[in-house]
């Protein structure tokens, strides 16, 4: 594979677009949530301010190397996932580094950041951080199940692991989307999606007062800023994967933005409506609802 240096600026551009989009979109969605609660809500640019503020904090402490590297892992995981998946279908330019690997790479790279973050949180020495990690890992691994099966279903359905080929197979009208060709798989994947977004009802991991926001409880200043950056990139990267697998991909940036927004909205909607699950409840939820639906989807193919 000949490497094209032009890919690097393109990648940075993708990153820039996604980050800004993420910052704005999350703010807007938060605002929508506030409106549902009859509040005015945050300003749409509030995320930028918070980010800048955290980058500009003057003092910081460190608990050790892994603590220091945790957010780096986290952000690398987010950026990596984004760049390993072709963002815009049919465009060499926005395919970024997807030549390095296929669907499986994306599937497993998700854990890169999680693992690094968990390690960093662990080194903070805070028992609540560990408690949060324990909950998070328990929940995420359970949520991962329907997703993994759904992904495999899709791969089986299209007999390929290549994102471009999967998206290509869904072209030609929205009825060709996996959403319609295999609704069960998509349903299972969406159940998993809720879990992976760490929003209510699956947010006991970061229960704010019980275990002061769990894993990142010791993180602050620039560390926190990195994690915030990631929080605006990573979900979108995940949404890109979903989009490509189940919703026909995105042929252009506007299409991308609309689909990303709608997908994000799903989890926000659910979060506004439902109260919190305990961890074992959410594990059971994924096992009892997510996995069987996924299995039906798998057998459907």
């Amino acid at each position: 594979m000949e490497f094209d240096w032009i890919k690097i600026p393109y990648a940075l551009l993708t990153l820039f677009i996604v980050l800004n989009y993420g910052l704005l979109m999350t703010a807007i969605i938060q605002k929508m949530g506030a409106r549902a609660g009859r509040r005015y809500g945050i300003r749409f640019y509030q995320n930028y301010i918070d980010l800048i503020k955290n980058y500009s904090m003057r003092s910081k402490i460190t608990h050790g190397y892994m603590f220091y590297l945790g957010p780096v892992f986290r952000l690398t995981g987010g950026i990596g996932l984004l760049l390993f998946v072709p963002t815009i279908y049919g465009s060499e330019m926005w395919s970024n580094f997807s030549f390095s690997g296929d669907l499986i790479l994306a599937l497993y790279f998700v854990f890169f950041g999680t693992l690094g973050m968990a390690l960093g949180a662990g080194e903070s020495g805070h028992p609540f951080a560990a408690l949060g990690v324990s909950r998070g890992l328990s929940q995420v691994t359970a949520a991962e199940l329907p997703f993994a099966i759904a992904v495999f279903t899709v791969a089986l359905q299209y007999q390929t692991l290549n994102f471009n080929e999967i998206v290509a197979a869904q072209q030609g009208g929205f009825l060709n989307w996996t959403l319609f060709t295999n609704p069960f798989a998509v349903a299972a994947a969406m159940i998993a999606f809720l879990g992976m977004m760490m929003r209510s009802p699956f947010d006991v991991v970061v229960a704010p007062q019980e275990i002061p926001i769990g894993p990142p409880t010791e993180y602050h200043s620039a560390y926190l800023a990195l994690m915030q950056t990631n929080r605006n990139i990573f979900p979108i990267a995940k949404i890109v994967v979903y989009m490509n697998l189940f919703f026909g991909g995105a042929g252009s940036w506007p299409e991308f933005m609309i689909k990303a927004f709608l997908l994000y909205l799903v989890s926000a909607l659910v979060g506004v409506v439902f109260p919190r699950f305990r961890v074992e409840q959410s594990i059971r939820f994924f096992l009892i609802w997510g996995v069987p639906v996924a299995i039906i989807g798998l057998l459907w193919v």
Partner: protein
Amino acid sequence: MVSPIYLIVITLGAAFLLGLLSERRTELAHFITVLALAAGGLVSFGWLWIMAAEGASAVEIYTAGTKPPFAINLRVGLPEAALLLLIYLTGLMSAIHMKDMLLRKGRRAMAVLLIAIMALAGIIMTRDIFNIFVFFELVAISTGGMVLLSDDPRALSAGIKYLIIAQVISILLLVGIIFTYQATGSLNIDFMKTPELALGGGGTLAFFLLLVPLLVELKPFPANGWALDIYQSAHPAFSAILSAATGSAALFAVDKIMDIGGASWGPVLTGVGLLSFVVSNILALVQKNDRRLLGYSSVAQTGLILAVVGQRELLGESYLFIAGGLLIGHAVAKAGLFYLSDLVKGRMLTNWADLRRNPLLVFAFATFIAMLSGLPPFPGFYAKWELVHALMASGKTGLVVLILFGAILEAGYLFRWFGYLMKRPQSNTPGTLPLRGVLVTMAAALAGWLAAYIWGELSGYDNLLSQTALLFALGFLLIDWFPAKLKNTIAIAGMLAFFWQSYTGYDPIQMIFGIIILVGGAVILLASYHERGQRIGFYPSALLMFAGLAMLIVAEQSFQFFAAWEVLTLGSYFLILRGKNAEPHALSYILFSLAGAFAIIAGFALAAQGQAGFKITALADVAADLAPWVFILLAIGFMTKTAVIGLHIWLPGAHAEAETDVSPMVSGILLKAGLFGIIVLLSNMGSPELYGVKLTYVMLWIGALTALMGNLMAAFQEDAKRLLAYSSIGQMGYAIFGLALMNHLGWLMALMFVINHYIYKSMLFLSVGGVAKRTGTKLMYKMGGLITLMPLSFFVVLIGIIAVSGVPPLSGFGGRWMFYNAILDSENRLPMIIIFISGPIAFLYLFRLIHAIFLGQLKDEHRKLKEPSFWIMVPQVIYVVLLLAFAVLPGMALQKVDTFLNGMFPEGGLNWDGLLITSDYGYWSPVWIMVVTGGIFAAVFMLLLAINRKAQKVKQFNIVYSAERPYRPETTHFAWNFFAPYRKAIWFLLLPIATRFWGGITEALHATAGFMRRFYTGDAQHYVFHLLGFVVGLYLILLGVQ
């Protein structure tokens, strides 16, 4: 050579001569005794040599100048000569061993001993049934006398019980003899044979009465209470004679008179023998007294040989080889064990821990139990192989099952005992072990090895004792007094040299295994440099295991394969047992392994169909109706080694409790033996169907469930090494799954797993072991925060867990990638779901491992710890480098294998196109993944560093704590029951069903034994009941059968 009659003359003459001596000249008397026995041994040996080496035929000795059947004649052939030698040597060694006692009791006791030996020789040689009776009576009476040569006052009651039984036996025997005589008109066995027909009618009954008393002499269940009492109370040196010599002679007598009865009586012997074998082994399970246990074991072994005698028609030419092998093994080992028992003060099995003081005796004990269990290279092993083959070929599966069941029970108590010896506390009074006893025991052990060599030569296979690898391993026994570091160097050099010498002959799959075993083993051995002192016993065991593994991968014949399998099992058992708390785990390891090995031998035997062995590749040609059964048996055997679900309960303990440098060996290397077996099996047999179900499909399920349960259990372990052990179970499940997919990528993935698992599991076991060695605990929640003190170990574990979890960019990901590509090829969707479920769970335990040990709060008592010792770190660093290299360039190892697999699965191979690896479905570029990930990581890190360079380093308690402060590190480290919510959600999956199941079986067996042994009330009259009940019962059964 002098006439064999001189055996009787010399011995008897010496006995009479002793009477002429003064009472006080006991030393002289003993000298004469020993001399006579030695002379007898020499004569027997001479005859054996003439028969065996020069091929002379049997000699007949006539008495009274008259030909048989009119006068008594004796015969010495090959088996007779061998047995005579055995008897005389046993007598000689016992005479030496019990010298003190003999001197104390005077010349009469020695005369009794001599006469006993003479009588045994008579039983062996004579061809006259009444003469047999006379000699038996001599044996009985002298036994009555010899029992008294004991310090145990209870011997007296054992003696009278025996005499009472002997009376009943002699009455029955006499009646039997006279009616047989009446029916056949002769007392000579050879002349009874001809008019066999005359045995019809009353004659059959006469033979029955002739046979049964002789059977009773073999102490069959249930008519054997008296024998156990004798074994328990007599002087062990005499018990040695009773077990080894008397038992052999009685067996031979039965074998002789079977000439009269003919083949139709075979099943009777087999039935009686097997009943004794199985029941006695069960009874022995709950026995705490060493000598009585040996008694049960003797009874059992005799029963087994009797069963073989019953099958002698079937066994044909190999009968002598088999029965002889079993007999020699039993006799030498049992004699040796009885000698050992004299060196032990206490009578409980646990008292044998005292023997540990002398490594030679440990070696002897190990030799004996290996002989008894039929492990290579001892005669019993060859015998077992032949026997099972012969029985399977003629469809006597039931017999094989019973024999193997009994054998596993026997191995159970023997190896448990060995565990006691190695691990139980020693008594406080050291006291020296008498030199004479040690020498005699060692002589017995050497005799065992000699017999092993002879049987190897006789076997018609490659003699195991002439295999370079094995000899190299055994050579370490001789240099065990060298310092450990020197031996380590020799071992490493030897393994590398062996690899260098043999690698050219390997095909790519063998090459992978060869590198892992030999080179990989050498790398792990680097860690062994950290041990000081001599480390006695480690190197022979380890090298035995490696030798077995090295022999396994090149085995072409089923026999070689199986022998190698047993060798590596034995070696690894000794190795595992070295761990501090390994006793119960090593036991369950060896039991599961042996049971698995039995499945393998049965599978091979079934496949062989009468051949004594076959080329492994001939597995492909097994008849279609047998193939599934062969497949199942072999698969069970191999999967026991890889610890699939249900058969896994041995693994966690065995791997976790082993020593620091042993855990990586058994986990990283030994487990691969099972995989190799499965590879061999699948590549030759493909996927047979049973009742329309593809067996690989079943295997797929097993693999998937194993992966799930292994990972799940791992997540809930508190013990770091146990966690890794369960993780191994899960990983092996993946590999089995991959193989069972039966497609190109599945296999490639499995082979990649082999390499990966070796690297990262060895690495993790070493680093965790090193840490555990420093901290003095394996419980993770007792550690914590060690990252500051052991950064290198942390780094190693970090790399390890990233690799295990399959997160890019490290090599574990390659495995996952291939896995997904492989299953796209396959149609088996349901088991795949299971394997999906198991995947993410790996994260749970991996994170737990690194978090609980290295992150979180540092404990007070660990504040001054340092990085594990240099030599433990060396291999770890090598592994890290290897892992990174393999992550970037998996093609190095896999490309050749991929090509090789094209031969088996032409479709679905990988395309190695420069940096890019493509399959039919997807693509993957390890280098680019590494570069991109590295690039992003570096950029982000730089960013953080730029902003954050002046971060204040704080200490462990500088954490926010709701405006409070933490109490102590112990209460601030969240590590125990880490995944409590998970446990709450899926508790029902974590129930230890398998453990309970096997535990239940063990319990049930013990309860049965505990209940059944009350049968032996100790009352002589009850024993008579047993005896007569045995006779009558047998009679009724035979009547019913007719």
